[in-house]
């Protein structure tokens, strides 16, 4: 409960500072609208924002599911196969030197303005953190546990499922928490480059029409959704770590 109160207090403080900035600096509404104005824009456009938020959330959730699945599969593949480590891992690290954002125009070119270019953007941006965190966890199983498993006559596959994977779940969880924050970034960047819907698209649209209050309302919703996603994934990770059996 104290967490809720703390969150509420932080929100009140944030809104207070925001209003103070607008009032004291005498900022015009097309630079920074005050919280009341933005709340009003949010209220009068709630249907519009919700529709676009649905699109962004679909992109994020599909991207999250695919990216996490691919990341987990890659980590396990690398962990069990020295050949894969030798051949694929350097390539994987090398791909990270390429800013994923730079691929957004190409993805839009290839996959169009629909949600799939954004899904792939989200997948690309979360795939490496998930794969890398889980892989590190799989490779750092305490040696004593593996020794014990060997003397017990465990096959490599059972050693993997019975000891290495559960031992790496906390590492996977930290990868997932990162992914929950990164996935919306990927989707929004994709929407900025070219889209027919989504919160990123709506922000650009509002900006172009000088509806700055709508732009800020959209931004707030995006932040809130990202926070909610991060919290949900964190909660799921905690449950997973606690229930492991």
């Amino acid at each position: 409960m104290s967490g809720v109160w703390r969150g509420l207090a932080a929100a009140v403080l944030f809104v207070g500072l925001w209003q103070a900035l607008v009032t004291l600096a005498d900022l015009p509404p097309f630079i920074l609208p005050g919280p009341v104005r933005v709340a009003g824009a949010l209220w009068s456009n709630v249907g519009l924002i919700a529709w676009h938020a649905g699109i962004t959330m679909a992109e994020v959730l599909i991207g999250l599911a695919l990216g996490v699945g691919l990341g987990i599969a890659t980590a396990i593949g690398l962990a069990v196969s020295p050949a894969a480590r030798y051949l694929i891992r350097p390539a994987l690290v090398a791909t990270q030197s390429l800013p994923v954002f730079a691929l957004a125009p190409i993805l839009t070119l290839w996959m169009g303005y629909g949600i799939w270019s954004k899904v792939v953007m989200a997948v690309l941006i979360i795939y490496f953190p998930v794969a890398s965190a889980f892989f590190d966890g799989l490779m750092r199983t305490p040696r004593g546990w593996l020794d014990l498993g060997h003397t017990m006559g465990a096959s490599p596959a059972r050693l993997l499922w019975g000891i290495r994977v559960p031992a790496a779940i906390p590492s996977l969880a930290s990868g997932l928490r990162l992914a929950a924050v990164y996935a919306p970034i990927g989707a929004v960047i994709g929407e900025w480059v070219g889209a027919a819907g989504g919160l990123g698209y709506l922000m650009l649209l509002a900006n172009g029409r000088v509806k700055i209050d709508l732009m800020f309302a959209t931004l707030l919703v995006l932040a809130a959704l990202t926070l909610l996603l991060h919290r949900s994934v964190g909660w799921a990770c905690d449950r997973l770590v606690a229930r492991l059996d």
Partner: protein
Amino acid sequence: MTPAPGITLIGAARFGESPLFPPVRLEIDPGSWSCLLGPSGCGKTTILRLIAGLDTGVDFDGHIRASDGKPLPGRVAYMAQTDLLMPWLDVLGNVTLGARLRGETPDVEAAETLVERLGLSEHAHKRPTKLSGGQRQRVALARTLMEDRPVVLLDEPFSALDARTRAEMQDLAAETLEGRTVLLVTHDPGEAARLGDRVFLMDRTGMVEAVPPATPAIRPAADSETLAFQGRLLDALREPAA
């Protein structure tokens, strides 16, 4: 449990160019406790790992044989200095780990009996983090017993415990592992003096056998012959390498 075999290890080990231990001969009698006593870094854990068939990273030149001529892998249970309990499993889950890792159905009834025998019944469904160091090492002993292997390799399993808990665990291990071939690696002369039917002293120059008192193990800690033997072992450990 199949009859416990004796084990003979003859050979030398080196790390690349630098020798770890010179040619040694270790004879472990069937169905009794052999203690391998020596300072840290003398290679005693390597010997235990060689017998267990675990990675050592050394070049071993020699052979390890069981007295019945059958291979050792699959007949060895291993207990280390740390309890090696899986934090995501409760006590029963840890005790039955071996069966699950082999894809067998765990014999939960046998596990419960063992857990009760080691005085852990009330903790059967607790996670390791909720247990004390002594309780955790009891769970590790229960897990070792659950494997029901004729050969048991103990790598300083009691060294992290306080004196009283250590003595209790020594009694419990001696009682529960009776009839098995046990190799205990330790750096504690007192432990070797109490538990060893045979005691081997090891340092970088090689291995010698010390003759324990006639009293059968496990010997009372305050027994004068045990104490004298413990003193002799300590002196031998402190002797500068020739």
